[in-house]
């Protein structure tokens, strides 16, 4: 069975690569999007976008950029989950859904165990804005600061204010609870806040990091961000060293330009500025976010994720069907994941190489 389809009908791989090359080469401003890929796949995809003078974006850019906006406007304090595991005597969990964004979070942080580095201590664990029933960790007594999603920005702001000794207008009981939490944060020796930008926005991350900056005036405090899906952090890192910029970068002028609005994938497609798209979603087969747009589309995804329309080429799942380098949340570093279920499917990089091999010679290299 062929692993490629055109409008839902099976075609040969050779024809698929040929067709994909035709679509991309004919476009004035092709978009390489999704980018749910391992590092080698991202390298190939970014070089392809550059060669075609198109643009690229990642499917979880919104989440990466929520953190990055804070980094590039104010700066950031970060550490690794493993450093939190061995040293954090206080962990502040921020926002709802953390276990959804990172299922292995509490295995990694091992909050039920004592700290190791800097001496053995029992941990204190605070969770602000957990979902109902979420703030349960085996073997750990979790102190909760309730906040609905709508209330969370205000509660974070109030907590930061109390850490800084500034007044807040809250009912006495709520203020007392916040004061106790602020006191706990200030008396931590090495405190770590854990958040996922997927559940927050930039202003909340900035509020949290502003508080961490103030805490560092007298003690040590830092943070562990939970990265976006589809190897968002790995692709962000790859994009940064290759182009200087994160995704949402275009090459229309022959050099990279980064603009979070201009090169956002859905906007490029819906406005008609992009006239062809290569959608890569090798981890999950997640579909493109744009709707009802008739654009020549090539999809690279795992078997079974073929859309009804356009060209589909099946690729392996990175780290599952083939050995792949990606950013590991548990170590906060690039790692090689060995294939657990090798399959005779092309890697993302191989599929892109096969497409590129079909370009006609008049395309500059």
């Amino acid at each position, binding site marked *: 069975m062929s692993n490629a389809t055109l409008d839902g009908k099976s075609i040969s791989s050779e024809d698929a690569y040929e067709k994909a090359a035709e679509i991309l080469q004919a476009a004035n401003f092709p978009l390489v999007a999704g980018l749910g890929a391992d590092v080698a796949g991202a390298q190939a995809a970014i070089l392809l976008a550059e*060669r075609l003078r198109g643009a690229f974006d990642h499917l979880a850019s919104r989440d990466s950029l929520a953190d*990055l906006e804070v980094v590039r406007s104010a700066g950031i304090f970060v550490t690794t989950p493993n450093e939190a595991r*061995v040293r954090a005597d206080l962990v502040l969990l921020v926002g709802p859904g953390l276990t959804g964004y990172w299922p292995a979070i509490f295995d990694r942080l091992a909050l039920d165990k004592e700290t190791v580095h800097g*001496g053995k201590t029992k941990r204190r664990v605070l969770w602000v804005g957990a979902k109902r029933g979420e703030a349960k960790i085996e073997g750990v007594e979790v102190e909760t600061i309730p906040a609905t999603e709508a209330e969370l920005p205000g509660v974070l702001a109030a907590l930061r204010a109390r850490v800084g000794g500034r007044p807040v207008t809250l009912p006495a009981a709520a203020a007392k609870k916040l004061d106790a939490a602020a006191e706990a944060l200030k008396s931590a020796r090495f405190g770590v806040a854990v958040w996922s930008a997927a559940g927050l926005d930039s202003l909340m991350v900035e509020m949290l990091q502003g508080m961490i900056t103030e805490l560092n005036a007298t003690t040590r405090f830092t943070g562990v961000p939970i990265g976006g899906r589809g190897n968002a952090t790995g692709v962000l890192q790859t994009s940064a060293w290759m182009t200087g910029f994160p995704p949402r970068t275009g090459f229309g002028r022959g050099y990279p330009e980064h603009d979070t609005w201009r090169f956002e994938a859905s906007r490029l497609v819906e406005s008609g500025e992009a006239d062809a798209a290569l959608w890569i979603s090798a981890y999950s087969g997640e579909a493109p976010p744009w709707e009802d747009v008739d654009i020549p589309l090539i999809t690279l995804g795992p078997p079974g994720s073929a859309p009804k329309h356009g060209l589909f080429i099946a690729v392996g799942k990175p780290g599952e069907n083939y*050995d792949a380098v990606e950013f590991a949340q548990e170590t906060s*570093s*690039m790692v*090689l994941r060995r294939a657990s279920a090798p399959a005779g499917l092309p890697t993302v990089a191989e599929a892109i190489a096969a497409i590129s091999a079909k370009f006609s010679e008049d395309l500059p290299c």
Partner: protein
Amino acid sequence: MLIRLRGGHVVDPATGVDGVADVYFEDGRIVAPPQGREPDEDYDVSGHIVMAGAIDIHSHIAGGNVNSARLLLPEMHRSIRARLDGTPLATAKWSTFETGRLYAQMGFTTVVEPAVAPHHALHSHLELGDVPIIDKGALTVLGNDDFLLAALRERESETAIADYVAQTVEATGTLGLKCINPGGADAFKQNMRAFGLDEIVPFYGVTSRQIFKSLQKATQTVGIPHPLHLHMNNLGIAGNIDTALATIDAAEGLPMHLAHVQFYAYGLEGKNAFSSAAPALAAKINANKNITVDVGAVMFGDTVTISSDVLRQFNSLSGAIPKKGVIFDGDANGGGVVPYAYRISNYYNAIQWAAGLELFLLIEDPLQVFFTTDHPNGGPFTTYPELFALLMSAELRAQWMERLPADVLEMTSLPSIKREYTLHEIALMSRAGPARLYGFTDRGRLGEGAVADIAVYKPQKDKAGMFRNAAYVFKDGENVVRDGVVTRYTKGKTLRVRPGYDRAIEKRLDAYYDELYGLSRSIFDVPEAALAGRSVYAEVACRN
């Protein structure tokens, strides 16, 4: 294919040549003038200077902290022009691709990235693999890692520490060991805000001095050619000349390399209590032949400081320009990224600039002092040509000094120094010396058998212009630069050592990672398969 560079002025201290000569190479290597054979290609380089490709011994070009700097400062590196055919991303500012192009353009063919954190080594190698043309090497950072500090606390044998050092260097694929503010990063995690040579890391009970001395010894024991590369305590602090002098004494005659020493050449003289102490430091270095240094010269302009000295970088945050930064408490060292602007009108910056030049000019032996700006900490590597020109002309230095705040000139000996570097000395410092420092036997020279990494410069009145745009550069015998333009990419190699050790340490480390992190140690591996042919290793021999 036999190639000849005909009639150039060859400056090659390693072979003692300083005069007009032909250079022949074939299959990527320098060869002796062949008898009875005409070259297949002939370049007339008469009137040009011919040197081996230059080697940068310390330049932060790759890795997680460098990448954080890129992401922190998008406003600092907007691109302005399209690239040429065949050189993808070559004009993408601050990209790995541009880095390779710009170094090649200046005639540099080997560059060492000096700060690879063991747990982030794969990331560093991925970036190095995307630096085209030049060969790369790296140094592994130890000295704030729990395994070592605990071993010192438990008074473990020197053999155990040597095995650990050798294993870590091998696993991370580098040229040797760097130690950055030994113990200081860990002390900072325990809320210390300053950390000197004899201060004690809480919980471990060991001093900075003990840490680097153990690593210095281990480096020698396992036969790594490059001596311990030390980033000392108290970087950038007024009066830190005392730290530098005491550290040299602590080396006790054993080989040690001190990084970016300009940042430690500060006295307390003058009304600002900040003066150049470069003469005292240079005198100490002249008297201690076991010591080598690189300067870490400051050049005026906007830049960003990138350092695994996280304590120091935290303290720098308040002076950041623009006011933002990244502070990363890593598994061991971590890092800090803080933007900064060196201004010629700023008293302190002008002292720093002068101190860097004084060190270059007062250290007598060019084999003891190396050419760096600690890129990008003192300034970007693209300022090297201006620095070469400053070293070669007292008149040019005098012109620059006229622009400094007047009180600066009273706090530096620079105005009184008339020394001018010769091309021979430039070649010693940037070619022959670095090769010796890292144990490279195949480069830094134009002798028979050396790799054909060659830079050809056209002399001109503007010395900086001459070094900025090489007339020709050959990498492994292939022409990659013509008239200052990179015409194509080649793939460089990654140089590494493989010191021997007792493999028993691996079992112990496996158990350590299982116990501490509940993780297989192999997750931090740098398998060649992961580099997908982008980083091809070449081995540098160890001494034993």
